[in-house]
Protein backbone atom coordinates (compact mmCIF):
# COMPACT_ATOMS: atom_id res chain seq x y z
CA UNK A 1 0.00 0.00 0.00
CA UNK A 2 1.54 3.27 -1.08
CA UNK A 3 -0.26 5.57 1.31
CA UNK A 4 2.76 6.82 3.12
CA UNK A 5 4.14 9.78 4.89
CA UNK A 6 7.45 11.18 3.78
CA UNK A 7 9.80 13.24 5.83
CA UNK A 8 9.03 16.26 3.78
CA UNK A 9 11.75 18.25 5.43
CA UNK A 10 14.36 15.80 4.28
CA UNK A 11 13.67 16.09 0.62
CA UNK A 12 12.11 19.38 -0.03
CA UNK A 13 14.53 22.24 0.18
CA UNK A 14 17.52 20.87 -1.64
CA UNK A 15 15.42 19.77 -4.56
CA UNK A 16 14.00 23.13 -5.32
CA UNK A 17 15.04 25.02 -8.36
CA UNK A 18 14.86 28.74 -7.95
CA UNK A 19 11.61 30.26 -9.15
CA UNK A 20 13.48 32.80 -11.25
CA UNK A 21 15.09 30.02 -13.22
CA UNK A 22 11.77 28.44 -13.97
CA UNK A 23 10.15 31.70 -14.86
CA UNK A 24 12.93 32.47 -17.28
CA UNK A 25 12.84 29.17 -19.12
CA UNK A 26 10.16 30.17 -21.59
CA UNK A 27 11.96 33.37 -22.41
CA UNK A 28 15.09 31.43 -23.26
CA UNK A 29 13.14 29.48 -25.84
CA UNK A 30 11.43 32.57 -27.13
CA UNK A 31 14.77 34.26 -27.51
CA UNK A 32 15.92 31.39 -29.63
CA UNK A 33 12.94 31.78 -31.92
CA UNK A 34 12.27 28.10 -32.18
CA UNK A 35 8.86 27.88 -30.62
CA UNK A 36 7.36 26.88 -33.94
CA UNK A 37 4.53 28.48 -35.82
CA UNK A 38 2.01 27.31 -33.25
CA UNK A 39 3.16 30.00 -30.89
CA UNK A 40 1.44 32.42 -33.24
CA UNK A 41 -1.86 30.72 -32.67
CA UNK A 42 -1.81 29.63 -29.09
CA UNK A 43 -1.12 31.13 -25.75
CA UNK A 44 -1.16 34.75 -24.83
CA UNK A 45 -0.25 36.89 -27.76
CA UNK A 46 1.51 39.48 -25.73
CA UNK A 47 4.12 36.95 -24.73
CA UNK A 48 4.76 35.05 -27.90
CA UNK A 49 7.65 37.03 -29.28
CA UNK A 50 8.78 39.05 -26.37
CA UNK A 51 12.53 38.59 -26.27
CA UNK A 52 13.06 40.75 -23.26
CA UNK A 53 11.08 38.77 -20.76
CA UNK A 54 7.84 39.64 -19.12
CA UNK A 55 7.40 41.02 -15.67
CA UNK A 56 6.34 38.20 -13.38
CA UNK A 57 2.61 38.24 -12.98
CA UNK A 58 1.50 37.89 -9.41
CA UNK A 59 1.14 34.18 -8.89
CA UNK A 60 -2.02 32.49 -7.70
CA UNK A 61 -2.21 32.54 -3.92
CA UNK A 62 -2.22 29.18 -2.23
CA UNK A 63 -2.60 28.71 1.51
CA UNK A 64 -1.51 26.13 4.04
CA UNK A 65 -3.84 23.25 4.78
CA UNK A 66 -4.21 21.28 7.98
CA UNK A 67 -4.26 17.57 7.39
CA UNK A 68 -3.23 14.35 9.02
CA UNK A 69 -0.06 12.63 7.99
CA UNK A 70 -0.70 8.93 8.00
CA UNK A 71 1.83 7.09 10.07
CA UNK A 72 3.57 4.41 8.10
CA UNK A 73 7.03 3.49 7.02
CA UNK A 74 9.00 6.31 5.49
CA UNK A 75 8.79 6.29 1.75
CA UNK A 76 12.17 5.82 0.18
CA UNK A 77 10.98 7.22 -3.09
CA UNK A 78 12.23 10.63 -3.97
CA UNK A 79 9.45 13.13 -4.32
CA UNK A 80 9.27 15.19 -7.47
CA UNK A 81 10.31 18.71 -6.42
CA UNK A 82 7.29 20.94 -5.96
CA UNK A 83 8.52 23.44 -8.54
CA UNK A 84 8.43 20.68 -11.13
CA UNK A 85 5.02 19.43 -10.01
CA UNK A 86 3.53 22.90 -10.41
CA UNK A 87 5.26 23.90 -13.65
CA UNK A 88 4.99 20.80 -15.85
CA UNK A 89 1.32 20.16 -16.45
CA UNK A 90 -1.06 18.76 -19.02
CA UNK A 91 -4.10 20.97 -18.63
CA UNK A 92 -5.17 21.78 -22.18
CA UNK A 93 -7.80 24.23 -20.95
CA UNK A 94 -4.83 26.52 -20.36
CA UNK A 95 -2.85 25.54 -23.47
CA UNK A 96 -1.25 22.40 -24.84
CA UNK A 97 2.38 23.09 -23.91
CA UNK A 98 3.68 21.71 -20.63
CA UNK A 99 4.45 25.17 -19.30
CA UNK A 100 1.33 26.86 -20.71
CA UNK A 101 -0.92 26.04 -17.72
CA UNK A 102 1.35 27.64 -15.12
CA UNK A 103 1.60 30.77 -17.28
CA UNK A 104 -2.02 31.14 -18.31
CA UNK A 105 -3.85 30.13 -15.14
CA UNK A 106 -2.61 32.37 -12.37
CA UNK A 107 -5.71 34.57 -12.36
CA UNK A 108 -8.07 31.60 -12.24
CA UNK A 109 -10.94 32.19 -9.79
CA UNK A 110 -11.63 29.28 -7.46
CA UNK A 111 -13.72 31.09 -4.86
CA UNK A 112 -16.70 30.88 -5.15
CA UNK A 113 -16.80 27.28 -6.40
CA UNK A 114 -19.64 24.81 -6.65
CA UNK A 115 -19.19 21.06 -6.81
CA UNK A 116 -22.41 19.17 -7.38
CA UNK A 117 -22.87 15.48 -6.63
CA UNK A 118 -26.08 14.26 -8.20
CA UNK A 119 -27.63 11.73 -10.56
CA UNK A 120 -28.54 8.33 -9.16
CA UNK A 121 -28.11 9.22 -5.50
CA UNK A 122 -30.50 9.44 -2.59
CA UNK A 123 -29.04 12.65 -1.35
CA UNK A 124 -27.64 15.11 -3.89
CA UNK A 125 -24.89 17.23 -2.38
CA UNK A 126 -23.58 20.67 -3.23
CA UNK A 127 -20.20 21.66 -1.88
CA UNK A 128 -19.11 25.30 -1.82
CA UNK A 129 -15.51 26.50 -1.80
CA UNK A 130 -14.99 26.29 1.95
CA UNK A 131 -16.79 22.93 2.15
CA UNK A 132 -14.11 21.39 -0.05
CA UNK A 133 -11.64 21.74 2.80
CA UNK A 134 -13.99 21.22 5.73
CA UNK A 135 -16.58 18.60 4.81
CA UNK A 136 -14.10 15.75 5.25
CA UNK A 137 -10.89 15.15 7.16
CA UNK A 138 -7.94 15.83 4.92
CA UNK A 139 -5.03 13.43 4.70
CA UNK A 140 -1.76 13.35 2.83
CA UNK A 141 -1.06 10.63 0.28
CA UNK A 142 2.10 10.12 -1.69
CA UNK A 143 1.20 8.77 -5.08
CA UNK A 144 3.07 8.13 -8.27
CA UNK A 145 1.37 9.86 -11.17
CA UNK A 146 2.01 8.03 -14.44
CA UNK A 147 1.26 10.04 -17.56
CA UNK A 148 0.19 8.19 -20.69
CA UNK A 149 3.11 9.98 -22.39
CA UNK A 150 5.48 7.70 -20.44
CA UNK A 151 6.74 10.09 -17.78
CA UNK A 152 5.86 10.08 -14.11
CA UNK A 153 6.09 12.12 -10.95
CA UNK A 154 5.81 11.38 -7.23
CA UNK A 155 3.40 13.82 -5.64
CA UNK A 156 2.35 14.38 -2.00
CA UNK A 157 -1.37 15.04 -2.48
CA UNK A 158 -3.75 16.23 0.20
CA UNK A 159 -7.39 15.28 0.02
CA UNK A 160 -10.09 12.86 1.05
CA UNK A 161 -11.20 9.52 -0.38
CA UNK A 162 -13.95 9.89 -2.98
CA UNK A 163 -15.59 6.96 -1.19
CA UNK A 164 -16.50 9.23 1.74
CA UNK A 165 -18.23 11.70 -0.51
CA UNK A 166 -20.12 8.92 -2.27
CA UNK A 167 -21.21 7.40 1.03
CA UNK A 168 -22.66 10.73 2.04
CA UNK A 169 -24.62 10.99 -1.19
CA UNK A 170 -25.78 7.36 -0.91
CA UNK A 171 -25.76 5.99 -4.47
CA UNK A 172 -28.92 4.17 -5.61
CA UNK A 173 -28.55 0.49 -6.39
CA UNK A 174 -29.01 1.35 -10.07
CA UNK A 175 -25.84 3.49 -10.06
CA UNK A 176 -22.98 1.77 -11.90
CA UNK A 177 -20.70 4.57 -13.02
CA UNK A 178 -19.47 7.96 -11.89
CA UNK A 179 -19.15 10.78 -14.43
CA UNK A 180 -16.92 13.79 -13.74
CA UNK A 181 -16.85 17.16 -15.43
CA UNK A 182 -14.35 20.03 -15.42
CA UNK A 183 -15.45 23.65 -15.24
CA UNK A 184 -16.43 25.12 -18.61
CA UNK A 185 -15.50 28.79 -18.65
CA UNK A 186 -13.82 29.94 -21.88
CA UNK A 187 -13.32 33.41 -20.41
CA UNK A 188 -10.98 31.99 -17.82
CA UNK A 189 -9.72 29.00 -19.76
CA UNK A 190 -8.18 30.13 -23.06
CA UNK A 191 -7.91 26.57 -24.35
CA UNK A 192 -11.70 26.28 -24.36
CA UNK A 193 -12.07 29.26 -26.66
CA UNK A 194 -10.98 27.62 -29.88
CA UNK A 195 -9.85 24.39 -31.41
CA UNK A 196 -6.52 26.04 -32.21
CA UNK A 197 -5.46 26.55 -28.64
CA UNK A 198 -7.22 23.69 -26.88
CA UNK A 199 -5.71 20.72 -28.66
CA UNK A 200 -8.82 19.89 -30.70
CA UNK A 201 -10.75 18.76 -27.63
CA UNK A 202 -14.50 19.15 -27.18
CA UNK A 203 -14.92 20.93 -23.87
CA UNK A 204 -15.87 20.57 -21.09
CA UNK A 205 -13.42 17.81 -20.26
CA UNK A 206 -15.25 14.75 -18.99
CA UNK A 207 -14.03 11.60 -17.27
CA UNK A 208 -15.55 8.56 -15.69
CA UNK A 209 -15.00 5.59 -13.41
CA UNK A 210 -16.90 2.46 -12.60
CA UNK A 211 -18.59 2.85 -9.22
CA UNK A 212 -16.37 0.18 -7.65
CA UNK A 213 -13.27 1.98 -8.93
CA UNK A 214 -14.57 5.28 -7.61
CA UNK A 215 -15.26 3.65 -4.24
CA UNK A 216 -11.80 2.14 -3.90
CA UNK A 217 -9.93 3.56 -0.89
CA UNK A 218 -7.03 4.67 -3.12
CA UNK A 219 -9.26 6.95 -5.19
CA UNK A 220 -8.71 10.44 -3.89
CA UNK A 221 -10.36 13.81 -4.29
CA UNK A 222 -7.41 16.13 -3.91
CA UNK A 223 -7.59 19.73 -2.73
CA UNK A 224 -3.88 20.30 -2.18
CA UNK A 225 -0.29 19.24 -2.71
CA UNK A 226 2.93 19.81 -0.83
CA UNK A 227 0.99 21.00 2.23
CA UNK A 228 -0.86 23.77 0.41
CA UNK A 229 -4.07 24.24 -1.56
CA UNK A 230 -3.80 23.28 -5.23
CA UNK A 231 -2.52 25.87 -7.66
CA UNK A 232 -4.75 26.27 -10.75
CA UNK A 233 -2.38 24.47 -13.11
CA UNK A 234 -2.75 21.33 -10.97
CA UNK A 235 -6.54 21.47 -10.97
CA UNK A 236 -7.62 23.91 -8.26
CA UNK A 237 -9.65 23.85 -6.20
CA UNK A 238 -10.49 20.15 -6.39
CA UNK A 239 -9.44 17.31 -8.65
CA UNK A 240 -9.55 13.56 -8.89
CA UNK A 241 -6.45 11.38 -8.37
CA UNK A 242 -6.62 7.75 -9.47
CA UNK A 243 -3.05 6.51 -9.05
CA UNK A 244 -3.34 3.18 -10.90
CA UNK A 245 -4.64 4.82 -14.07
CA UNK A 246 -2.94 7.06 -16.62
CA UNK A 247 -2.91 10.69 -15.59
CA UNK A 248 -5.60 11.88 -18.00
CA UNK A 249 -8.19 10.00 -15.88
CA UNK A 250 -7.38 12.27 -12.94
CA UNK A 251 -9.65 15.10 -14.05
CA UNK A 252 -8.94 18.61 -12.79
CA UNK A 253 -11.04 21.52 -11.48
CA UNK A 254 -14.13 19.36 -11.06
CA UNK A 255 -17.59 20.97 -10.89
CA UNK A 256 -19.81 17.92 -11.30
CA UNK A 257 -19.83 14.34 -10.07
CA UNK A 258 -22.82 12.46 -11.42
CA UNK A 259 -23.79 8.87 -10.75
CA UNK A 260 -25.16 7.06 -13.78
CA UNK A 261 -26.21 3.62 -14.94
CA UNK A 262 -24.38 3.90 -18.28
CA UNK A 263 -20.68 4.11 -19.02
CA UNK A 264 -20.06 7.86 -19.35
CA UNK A 265 -18.16 9.32 -22.31
CA UNK A 266 -14.58 10.30 -21.55
CA UNK A 267 -12.67 13.03 -23.33
CA UNK A 268 -9.54 11.29 -24.63
CA UNK A 269 -11.47 8.16 -25.50
CA UNK A 270 -13.81 10.25 -27.65
CA UNK A 271 -10.84 11.93 -29.34
CA UNK A 272 -8.89 8.76 -30.15
CA UNK A 273 -10.67 5.55 -29.09
CA UNK A 274 -7.91 3.28 -30.37
CA UNK A 275 -5.31 5.08 -28.27
CA UNK A 276 -7.13 5.84 -25.02
CA UNK A 277 -9.61 3.44 -23.46
CA UNK A 278 -12.23 4.04 -20.78
CA UNK A 279 -10.27 2.06 -18.20
CA UNK A 280 -6.79 3.43 -18.98
CA UNK A 281 -5.18 1.28 -16.31
CA UNK A 282 -1.40 1.60 -16.28
CA UNK A 283 -0.26 -1.55 -18.04
CA UNK A 284 3.30 -2.18 -19.28
CA UNK A 285 2.03 -5.07 -21.41
CA UNK A 286 -0.26 -2.94 -23.52
CA UNK A 287 1.61 -0.33 -25.56
CA UNK A 288 0.15 2.89 -26.75
CA UNK A 289 -0.19 2.43 -30.54
CA UNK A 290 2.53 5.02 -31.07
CA UNK A 291 4.94 4.40 -28.21
CA UNK A 292 5.94 1.78 -25.65
CA UNK A 293 4.39 1.77 -22.19
CA UNK A 294 6.97 -0.69 -20.86
CA UNK A 295 9.04 1.95 -19.12
CA UNK A 296 8.81 5.59 -18.11
CA UNK A 297 10.99 8.53 -17.22
CA UNK A 298 10.52 9.42 -13.56
CA UNK A 299 10.84 13.17 -13.20
CA UNK A 300 12.71 13.92 -10.01
CA UNK A 301 15.73 16.11 -9.48
CA UNK A 302 18.77 16.44 -11.62
CA UNK A 303 19.66 17.48 -15.10
CA UNK A 304 19.77 15.81 -18.45
CA UNK A 305 22.20 13.13 -17.32
CA UNK A 306 19.84 11.83 -14.69
CA UNK A 307 19.28 8.13 -15.43
CA UNK A 308 15.59 8.18 -14.64
CA UNK A 309 14.13 5.55 -16.95
CA UNK A 310 12.39 2.95 -14.81
CA UNK A 311 10.24 -0.06 -15.61
CA UNK A 312 6.52 0.65 -15.56
CA UNK A 313 4.60 -1.56 -13.14
CA UNK A 314 1.18 -3.12 -13.60
CA UNK A 315 -1.43 -0.77 -12.13
CA UNK A 316 1.45 1.66 -11.61
CA UNK A 317 2.50 -0.57 -8.71
CA UNK A 318 -0.90 -0.39 -6.96
CA UNK A 319 -1.51 -4.14 -7.17
CA UNK A 320 -4.25 -4.02 -4.55
CA UNK A 321 -6.70 -2.86 -7.22
CA UNK A 322 -6.23 -6.07 -9.26
CA UNK A 323 -9.40 -7.72 -7.81
CA UNK A 324 -11.49 -5.00 -9.45
CA UNK A 325 -10.56 -6.48 -12.82
CA UNK A 326 -10.24 -10.14 -12.00
CA UNK A 327 -12.40 -11.53 -14.82
CA UNK A 328 -11.43 -8.97 -17.39
CA UNK A 329 -8.97 -9.28 -20.23
CA UNK A 330 -7.02 -6.08 -19.70
CA UNK A 331 -5.40 -6.29 -23.12
CA UNK A 332 -8.91 -5.84 -24.55
CA UNK A 333 -10.39 -3.44 -22.05
CA UNK A 334 -7.72 -0.78 -22.31
Amino acid sequence: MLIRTPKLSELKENQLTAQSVYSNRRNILKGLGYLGAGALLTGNKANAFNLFGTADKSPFKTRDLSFSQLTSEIDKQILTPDQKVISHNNFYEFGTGKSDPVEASQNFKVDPWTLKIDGLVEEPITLGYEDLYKAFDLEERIYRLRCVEAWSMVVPWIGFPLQKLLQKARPLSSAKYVAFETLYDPKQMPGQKSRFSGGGIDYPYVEGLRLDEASHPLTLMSVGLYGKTLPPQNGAPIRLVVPWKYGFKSIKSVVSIRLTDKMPPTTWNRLAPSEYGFYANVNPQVDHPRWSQGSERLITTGNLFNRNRVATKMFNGYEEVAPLYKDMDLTRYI
Partner: protein
Amino acid sequence: MFRLNKNHILLLKVFLHCAAFLPLARLYYCAFADKLGADPVQVILHFTGIGAFNLLLLSLLVSPVAKNLRQGQLINIRRPLGLYAFTYALFHFLSYIAFDLQFEWQLLISEIFKRPYIYVGFISLLILTVLALTSTKSIQRKLGSTWQKIHNWVYLALLTVSLHYFWSVKSGLIQPIMYICFALLLTFVRYKKLTKNLKRQNQRI
Protein backbone atom coordinates in the same frame (compact mmCIF):
# COMPACT_ATOMS: atom_id res chain seq x y z
CA MET B 1 19.22 46.45 -59.63
CA PHE B 2 20.61 45.32 -56.33
CA ARG B 3 22.59 42.12 -56.55
CA LEU B 4 23.99 40.12 -53.67
CA ASN B 5 27.74 39.78 -54.04
CA LYS B 6 30.22 37.46 -52.37
CA ASN B 7 30.64 39.74 -49.37
CA HIS B 8 26.92 39.80 -48.74
CA ILE B 9 26.85 36.03 -48.88
CA LEU B 10 29.74 35.84 -46.44
CA LEU B 11 27.82 38.05 -44.04
CA LEU B 12 24.72 35.94 -44.50
CA LYS B 13 26.72 32.83 -43.74
CA VAL B 14 28.16 34.33 -40.57
CA PHE B 15 24.64 35.29 -39.51
CA LEU B 16 23.39 31.80 -40.30
CA HIS B 17 26.12 30.17 -38.21
CA CYS B 18 25.25 32.39 -35.25
CA ALA B 19 21.51 31.88 -35.64
CA ALA B 20 21.76 28.12 -35.95
CA PHE B 21 24.69 27.12 -33.78
CA LEU B 22 24.36 29.42 -30.76
CA PRO B 23 20.78 28.39 -29.88
CA LEU B 24 21.80 24.76 -30.03
CA ALA B 25 24.76 25.36 -27.72
CA ARG B 26 22.60 27.37 -25.36
CA LEU B 27 19.90 24.72 -25.35
CA TYR B 28 22.26 21.98 -24.22
CA TYR B 29 23.95 24.25 -21.71
CA CYS B 30 20.57 25.06 -20.13
CA ALA B 31 19.59 21.40 -20.12
CA PHE B 32 22.82 20.37 -18.40
CA ALA B 33 22.36 23.16 -15.86
CA ASP B 34 18.76 21.96 -15.23
CA LYS B 35 17.33 25.25 -16.45
CA LEU B 36 14.90 23.85 -18.99
CA GLY B 37 11.91 23.17 -16.80
CA ALA B 38 10.68 19.96 -15.29
CA ASP B 39 11.44 17.76 -18.25
CA PRO B 40 14.48 18.98 -20.20
CA VAL B 41 14.41 15.87 -22.38
CA GLN B 42 11.08 16.78 -23.91
CA VAL B 43 12.16 20.38 -24.48
CA ILE B 44 15.34 19.24 -26.24
CA LEU B 45 13.50 16.79 -28.46
CA HIS B 46 10.90 19.34 -29.51
CA PHE B 47 13.44 22.09 -30.02
CA THR B 48 15.86 20.08 -32.16
CA GLY B 49 13.03 18.39 -34.04
CA ILE B 50 11.16 21.52 -35.00
CA GLY B 51 14.49 23.27 -35.59
CA ALA B 52 15.56 20.60 -38.08
CA PHE B 53 12.25 20.92 -39.91
CA ASN B 54 12.50 24.73 -40.01
CA LEU B 55 16.03 24.54 -41.42
CA LEU B 56 15.08 21.91 -43.98
CA LEU B 57 12.21 24.06 -45.23
CA LEU B 58 14.49 27.11 -45.33
CA SER B 59 17.07 25.22 -47.36
CA LEU B 60 14.39 24.33 -49.88
CA LEU B 61 13.18 27.90 -49.99
CA VAL B 62 16.57 29.12 -51.23
CA SER B 63 16.45 28.10 -54.87
CA PRO B 64 12.93 29.39 -55.68
CA VAL B 65 13.78 32.68 -53.99
CA ALA B 66 17.15 32.95 -55.75
CA LYS B 67 15.49 32.23 -59.09
CA ASN B 68 12.58 34.60 -58.75
CA LEU B 69 14.57 37.47 -57.32
CA ARG B 70 17.47 36.78 -59.71
CA GLN B 71 20.00 36.47 -56.91
CA GLY B 72 22.20 33.66 -58.13
CA GLN B 73 24.71 34.09 -55.32
CA LEU B 74 22.05 33.20 -52.79
CA ILE B 75 22.32 29.56 -53.79
CA ASN B 76 25.56 29.43 -51.78
CA ILE B 77 23.73 29.43 -48.48
CA ARG B 78 21.70 26.36 -49.40
CA ARG B 79 24.47 23.96 -48.42
CA PRO B 80 25.08 25.33 -44.89
CA LEU B 81 21.32 25.44 -44.29
CA GLY B 82 20.99 21.80 -45.33
CA LEU B 83 23.95 20.82 -43.19
CA TYR B 84 22.44 22.54 -40.18
CA ALA B 85 19.14 20.76 -40.82
CA PHE B 86 21.12 17.52 -40.73
CA THR B 87 22.96 18.60 -37.58
CA TYR B 88 19.73 19.40 -35.77
CA ALA B 89 18.22 16.10 -36.88
CA LEU B 90 21.31 14.26 -35.68
CA PHE B 91 21.16 15.95 -32.26
CA HIS B 92 17.44 15.15 -32.18
CA PHE B 93 18.16 11.45 -32.74
CA LEU B 94 21.19 11.29 -30.43
CA SER B 95 19.26 13.04 -27.65
CA TYR B 96 16.41 10.59 -28.12
CA ILE B 97 18.85 7.70 -27.65
CA ALA B 98 20.92 9.20 -24.87
CA PHE B 99 18.39 11.13 -22.79
CA ASP B 100 14.98 9.71 -23.59
CA LEU B 101 15.70 6.01 -24.11
CA GLN B 102 18.90 6.28 -22.05
CA PHE B 103 20.82 3.77 -24.14
CA GLU B 104 18.26 0.99 -23.92
CA TRP B 105 19.31 -0.41 -27.27
CA GLN B 106 16.67 -3.10 -27.36
CA LEU B 107 13.98 -0.52 -26.82
CA LEU B 108 15.51 1.59 -29.60
CA ILE B 109 15.44 -1.26 -32.09
CA SER B 110 11.88 -2.27 -31.21
CA GLU B 111 10.67 1.35 -31.31
CA ILE B 112 12.25 1.92 -34.73
CA PHE B 113 10.56 -1.12 -36.22
CA LYS B 114 7.26 -1.04 -34.33
CA ARG B 115 6.37 2.62 -34.36
CA PRO B 116 5.57 4.22 -37.70
CA TYR B 117 6.49 7.73 -36.55
CA ILE B 118 9.89 6.64 -35.25
CA TYR B 119 10.41 4.58 -38.38
CA VAL B 120 9.77 7.46 -40.78
CA GLY B 121 11.85 9.74 -38.58
CA PHE B 122 14.74 7.32 -38.81
CA ILE B 123 14.40 7.13 -42.60
CA SER B 124 14.48 10.92 -42.73
CA LEU B 125 17.72 10.95 -40.77
CA LEU B 126 19.27 8.33 -43.06
CA ILE B 127 18.43 10.40 -46.13
CA LEU B 128 19.77 13.60 -44.59
CA THR B 129 22.95 11.72 -43.65
CA VAL B 130 23.53 10.63 -47.25
CA LEU B 131 22.87 14.17 -48.45
CA ALA B 132 25.26 15.61 -45.88
CA LEU B 133 28.01 13.13 -46.74
CA THR B 134 27.72 13.92 -50.45
CA SER B 135 27.47 17.66 -50.00
CA THR B 136 31.05 18.76 -50.69
CA LYS B 137 31.97 20.35 -54.00
CA SER B 138 34.52 17.66 -54.84
CA ILE B 139 32.03 14.84 -54.34
CA GLN B 140 29.46 16.78 -56.33
CA ARG B 141 31.94 16.99 -59.23
CA LYS B 142 32.84 13.32 -58.98
CA LEU B 143 29.24 12.17 -59.00
CA GLY B 144 28.25 14.29 -61.96
CA SER B 145 24.60 13.90 -62.90
CA THR B 146 24.07 11.18 -60.28
CA TRP B 147 24.53 13.86 -57.63
CA GLN B 148 21.30 15.61 -58.56
CA LYS B 149 19.44 12.31 -58.50
CA ILE B 150 20.72 11.56 -55.01
CA HIS B 151 19.86 15.01 -53.82
CA ASN B 152 16.33 14.77 -55.15
CA TRP B 153 15.79 12.41 -52.24
CA VAL B 154 15.34 15.53 -50.18
CA TYR B 155 11.73 15.56 -51.39
CA LEU B 156 11.25 12.09 -49.95
CA ALA B 157 12.79 13.36 -46.71
CA LEU B 158 10.33 16.25 -46.77
CA LEU B 159 7.53 13.70 -46.90
CA THR B 160 8.91 11.45 -44.16
CA VAL B 161 9.71 14.39 -41.89
CA SER B 162 6.16 15.68 -42.32
CA LEU B 163 4.74 12.28 -41.45
CA HIS B 164 7.09 11.98 -38.48
CA TYR B 165 5.84 15.28 -37.11
CA PHE B 166 2.18 14.62 -37.92
CA TRP B 167 2.16 11.20 -36.26
CA SER B 168 4.14 12.24 -33.21
CA VAL B 169 1.68 14.77 -31.79
CA LYS B 170 -0.95 13.64 -29.31
CA SER B 171 -3.68 15.99 -30.45
CA GLY B 172 -4.01 19.43 -31.97
CA LEU B 173 -2.92 18.88 -35.54
CA ILE B 174 -3.04 22.51 -36.63
CA GLN B 175 0.69 23.14 -36.42
CA PRO B 176 1.79 19.94 -38.20
CA ILE B 177 -0.76 20.68 -40.91
CA MET B 178 0.68 24.16 -41.39
CA TYR B 179 4.14 22.66 -41.80
CA ILE B 180 2.85 20.11 -44.27
CA CYS B 181 1.14 22.83 -46.30
CA PHE B 182 4.40 24.74 -46.47
CA ALA B 183 6.26 21.59 -47.50
CA LEU B 184 3.68 20.96 -50.24
CA LEU B 185 4.03 24.53 -51.43
CA LEU B 186 7.79 24.15 -51.72
CA THR B 187 7.31 20.95 -53.70
CA PHE B 188 4.64 22.52 -55.88
CA VAL B 189 6.82 25.43 -57.02
CA ARG B 190 9.20 22.78 -58.39
CA TYR B 191 6.43 20.88 -60.07
CA LYS B 192 7.77 21.39 -63.61
CA LYS B 193 11.32 20.49 -62.73
CA LEU B 194 10.33 17.40 -60.78
CA THR B 195 7.98 16.03 -63.45
CA LYS B 196 10.64 16.68 -66.09
CA ASN B 197 13.16 14.70 -64.05
CA LEU B 198 10.73 11.86 -63.58
CA LYS B 199 9.91 11.73 -67.29
CA ARG B 200 13.57 11.68 -68.19
CA GLN B 201 14.16 8.79 -65.83
CA ASN B 202 11.18 6.90 -67.23
CA GLN B 203 12.42 7.34 -70.78
CA ARG B 204 15.74 5.83 -69.82
CA ILE B 205 14.02 2.83 -68.28
